[in-house]
C-alpha cells in the first residue's frame, strides 16, 4: 500500500482509520471476555444484565459506530465518483483474454496494447469493457478496481500525482492465462503527454 493518487490515498486513509477502530473494538471484546473468568461475588439480576450487555453493548454501541463508518464511507465514495471536470481526460480500456487494448479520446486513431498512457496530475476517466469474459481493471497504487463486463461500459476515475510507471492487474479470475494477466500505466508530465499524443509510434 503505497498510494500515488488521490483515490488510492483516501482509501488508504479509510483503511488506517478502520484498522485502528477494529483493533480497539477487538481489544474491548477480548478484555470483556477475559474479565468474565474473574471470581465474582453475588450476581446482578437478569434485567440489569440485559440492559448492560444487550441494549448498551449489543445494540447501541455497534449501531453508533457503524452509522459513523457508513457515513464516512459514503462521503469518500461520492468524492471518488467521476464528475464533470474540464481537466479530465477520457480513455477506453477493452479487455480480452489476456490482453488490454487502450484507446484515447484525444487521439482516436491511437491505440496501445497492455500499456496505458495518462497525464500525471489530471483526473483520467477510464471506460472499461470486455469482449469475452469478465475481467477487472485495477491499478492498486492509483485507485480501486472496476470490472470489465461484456456488454457493459463502466467508468473508473484514476489520477496519478507524479509522472511514473505503475503496475496494473486484471483482478477477476479469467481461466488459464490469469496469472500473468497484467498491464502497465505510464503517467507522463504535461510535455510527455503532448509528445505521446503527437507521436505516431507505440
Amino acid at each position, binding site marked *: 500500500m503505497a498510494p500515488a493518487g488521490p483515490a488510492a490515498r483516501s482509501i488508504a486513509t479509510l*483503511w488506517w482509520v478502520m484498522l485502528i477502530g477494529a483493533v480497539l473494538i477487538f481489544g474491548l471484546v477480548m478484555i470483556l*471476555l477475559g474479565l468474565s473468568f474473574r471470581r465474582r461475588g453475588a450476581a446482578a439480576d437478569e434485567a440489569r*444484565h440485559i440492559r448492560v450487555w444487550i441494549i448498551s453493548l*449489543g445494540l447501541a454501541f*455497534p449501531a453508533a459506530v*457503524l452509522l459513523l463508518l457508513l457515513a464516512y464511507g459514503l462521503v469518500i465514495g461520492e468524492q471518488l465518483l467521476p464528475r464533470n471536470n474540464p481537466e479530465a481526460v477520457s480513455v477506453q480500456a477493452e479487455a480480452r483474454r489476456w490482453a488490454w487494448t487502450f484507446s484515447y479520446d484525444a487521439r482516436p486513431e491511437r491505440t496501445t496494447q497492455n500499456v496505458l498512457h495518462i497525464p500525471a496530475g489530471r483526473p483520467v476517466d477510464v471506460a472499461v469493457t470486455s469482449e469475452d469474459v469478465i475481467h477487472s481493471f485495477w491499478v*492498486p497504487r492509483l485507485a480501486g478496481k472496476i470490472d470489465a*463486463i461484456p456488454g457493459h461500459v463502466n467508468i473508473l476515475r484514476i489520477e496519478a500525482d507524479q509522472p511514473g510507471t505503475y503496475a496494473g492487474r486484471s*483482478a477477476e479470475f*479469467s481461466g488459464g492465462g490469469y496469472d500473468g494477466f497484467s498491464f502497465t500505466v505510464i503517467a507522463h508530465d504535461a510535455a510527455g503527454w503532448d509528445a505521446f499524443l503527437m507521436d505516431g509510434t507505440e
Partner: protein
Amino acid sequence: MSILERHRKLTAIWSSEPGFKGWFSTVNHTDLGRMFLVTAFFFFLVGGVLAMLIRAQLATPDSAFMGPEIYNQVFTMHGTIMMFLFAIPMFEGLAIYLLPKLLGTRDLAFPRLTAYGYWCYVFGGTMLLVSMFLGIAPDGGWFMYPPLTGAIYSPGINTDFWLIGITFVEISAIAAAVEITVSVLKFRAPGMSLDKMPIFAWYALVTALMILTGFPPLILGSVLLELERAFGLPFFQAELGGDSLLWQHLFWLFGHPEVYIIFLPAAGIISTVLPVMCRTTLLGYGWIVAAIVALAFLSFGLWVHHMFTTGIPHMGLAFFSAASTLVAVPTGVQIFAWIGTMWKGRPELRLPMLHILGFFVTFVIGGLTGVMVAVVPFDWQAHDTAFITAHLHYVLFGGFVFPILAGLYYWLPHFTGRKRFFRLGEVAFALIFTGFHVTFLAMHWVGLLGQRRRISTYQAEDGWTAINLISSIGGFVLAIGIAIVVIEVALHAVTANRGKRNPWKATTLEWAMMTPAPAYNFASLPHISSREPLNDDPDLAVRLARGEGYLGDSGPGGRRETLTVNASSGQPDYHVIYPGNTRLPVFMAAVTGLFFLSLLLKFYWITPLAVSGVAFLACRWVWTLGHRGDLPDQPVGHGVALPNSIAVDHGSGWWGSLFLLTANATFFGSLLFGFAFLWTVAPGWPPPALFEPSLLEMAAGLAAAAASTAAIRRAIRANRNGQTVMPSLVLAIAGALVLGAVIGSLMLRTPGPSAHAYGATLLVLGGYGLFHAALGALMAGFLAMRVRRGFTSPVRRAEFPIVRLWIDYLAVVGMLVLLAAHVPGFLT
C-alpha cells in the same frame, strides 16, 4: 412393564436392520444424522487436503508443483466442497440427529425424506468426486461466473459437473430444510410452546427457512446456465440479449444468505453449549430470537455487496453498504449476549469452551474485516484479493468450524456413550488455533500488498515470498491439528470407556435418555413446562423410561408413533404413525441420480424414463400412507386422545407442501426477477420480435386456472358433506390439462429461443408452467384413485387440502406465465 421390557419392545419396533444393510433401509433420524455427519466430515477432510495442495503451490514463487489447469480445479473444488458438501450437510446432519431429541419427540416429520435427502447428497457428492479423480473437475472458481463458464470459454464437461452435481446436492438441502421446518413447528413434546423451545431449535428453524428461500435462486441460475451450455439458450451472453450480471445477482442472492445459513447453526451450538459451560442460562433468550430473525432477513438484502466493482450506480451500492453495516448489529447483540452469559455464570475452561473462545477471537476479527469490506471504497481496493480470502476464512472457520468442534466435543459423549480417554483434544485445539491465525493473518497482509486471489503463482520480485511461506506453514500446522482431532475421535469410538449419562450437567432434553441414544429416543414423551426440563426434574430421564409421559403404552399394532403439537401453544394436536424401514428412498435417489446423469452425459433418451421413474416411485411413496377405515381418536396418556394425522385438515403433508411451495415460489420469483432484469438492464433489448399474443389462448388458460381451483374447493366441500367428489376432481384435472395445453402452445410459438434471451426466458417460463400443470393433473388424478380405493372419507380428509395447495399454486403460476407472455404483445 419394567424399563428394560419397555426398551426391548420399543427397540424391536424402531430399530434398523442390523449390519451395513441397515444403512440402505434405515429411515431413523439418529442413524441418518450420524451418516450425514460422518459423510460431511469426510468431505471436510477432502476439502482440507485440497487446501493443503493450494498452500503447497503458493508456498514458493514460480512454483512448478501444479500447472494452472490443475490448480484451477483444485481451488474451485476446495470452495465447492467446503460450501456445499461440508458446511450445509454438517448442519443438516447435526439438526437431523439432535432436533427430535432436543424437542422431546421420537423422529422427524418425514423419516423417508431424511433418507432420500441423504442419498441425494451422497450420489451428488460422488459425482463431483469422480470428476476430480478423472481430472475433469470444475475449474471456473466456486462462484462460476459466466461467460467464463459458458460453452464458448469452458467447452469441457467440467462446468456441467458443477451445475448438475450441485443442483443434485441442493435437493438434499431443500429436503432437509422442509423436514426441519415442519419438525420444529409441529413435532415437539406437549407443552413446549414457542418460548420453551431450546434455542437451537430456533436457530435450526430460521436456518431452514433461509435454505428454502436462499437456495432456489442458485438452483435457477444453475438450470439457466446448464440450458445455455447444453441447448444454446442465451441467458448470459451479452450479444444475444443476455447478461452475465444476471448470474451474479442470482448467485449472490443465494451466496450471501448462505454465509448466514452456515453461521446460524454454529451460533446455535454456541448458544446451547456456552451456558452449560458457564453453569447458567442463556442471557436474553427473546432478544436472541429477535436477533436471529432480523439477521435472517437482513442477510437477504446484502447480495450486491459482492458486486461493488461491477459498475452499479453509487446509490445502489450505498443501499447495500448500509444493509451490510446494519447486519453487524444483530450479530453484535448475539456476541454481547454470550459475553453477558459468561459474566452471569461461572465459565469453566473445558474443551468445548476452548473452542468457543477460539470462535470468539476468530469470528470477531472476521466480523470486523467484514465491516471494512462493507464500506464501498475500501472494497474497491480489497475486492478479489487475498484479503477477501482471508476475511471469508475468518468468518467461516471462526463462525463455523470452531463452533462445530465445540459441538463435536460437547455431544461426543452423547453420540457414543463414552468419555474421552486420551487428552489429545487440548493439543489439537492449540495447533488448530495457532495454525489458523498464522495462515490467515498472513493472508490478510499479502492481500493488502496486492496479491490477487486465485493466482496459481507469483514472482519473487513481487515480494510476497516470505509471507506466503509463513502462511503455508501455518496451514500445515492447522492440518496436523485437524488430524489429531480425527485420531482422537477414532480412538474414542474404539475404546470402551463408559461415561456418565449427562456428563456436562446440561438441562436440555437430549440428555434425558440413555447414551448412545436408543432408536426411539424417549420411551414416553415429557410434558414441558420450562426451557430447562432437566433442571425442573433431574429424574426426568428415569420417569420417561418408565413410561410415565405421553405415549407410554406403545400404540396400534406395534407401529412407530409420535404426536404433534400446535405450533404456538404446544397443545397436543394429532397422532402420527410413521412408516418403517424401507429401501424406497435410496432407490428413488438412485433414479433421481439417473436423471441428472443422463443430462450430464447427454443421454437425453434416458431423461424421460428417469422422470417417469421418479414420478412412479413418488406415487408409490405416498400410496403406502393412510388407512381404508376411519380410526377412533388415539389415547396418548394423561387423559388426552388425539385424531390420526389423516383425520385433520392440516396434516404433516400439508405443512411440508406449504414450505416446499415456499421454496418453489422463490424459484419462480427469481425467474420473474431475471426476466424483468434482462428486460430493463441487459444490452440488446427490446428483442427483435415479441411473442404473438392470442386473446383466445390467454382467456382459455386463465379460465382453466380458475376452474381447477374452484373445482378442488368444491371437491373438499363435497367430501366433507359425504357427497361424491369425482366430478369435481375430473374438472380439476381437465382444468390443469387445458392450462398445460395453452402453455404448451406458448412454448411452441416462442420466437427464436436460441437467438435472443427473450425467447429463451419465455421458453423456461413456459416449461415451468407446463411442469406444474402436469404435476397438478397427476396429483388430482392420484387423489381420484385414492378416493376410489376408499382411502378417504369425510373424516379421513387430509389429502384434499394438500392437492388444493398445489392446484392453487399451479393456477397462480399459470396465470403469471400467460400474462408475462401475452400482455407485452398486446401493449405494442
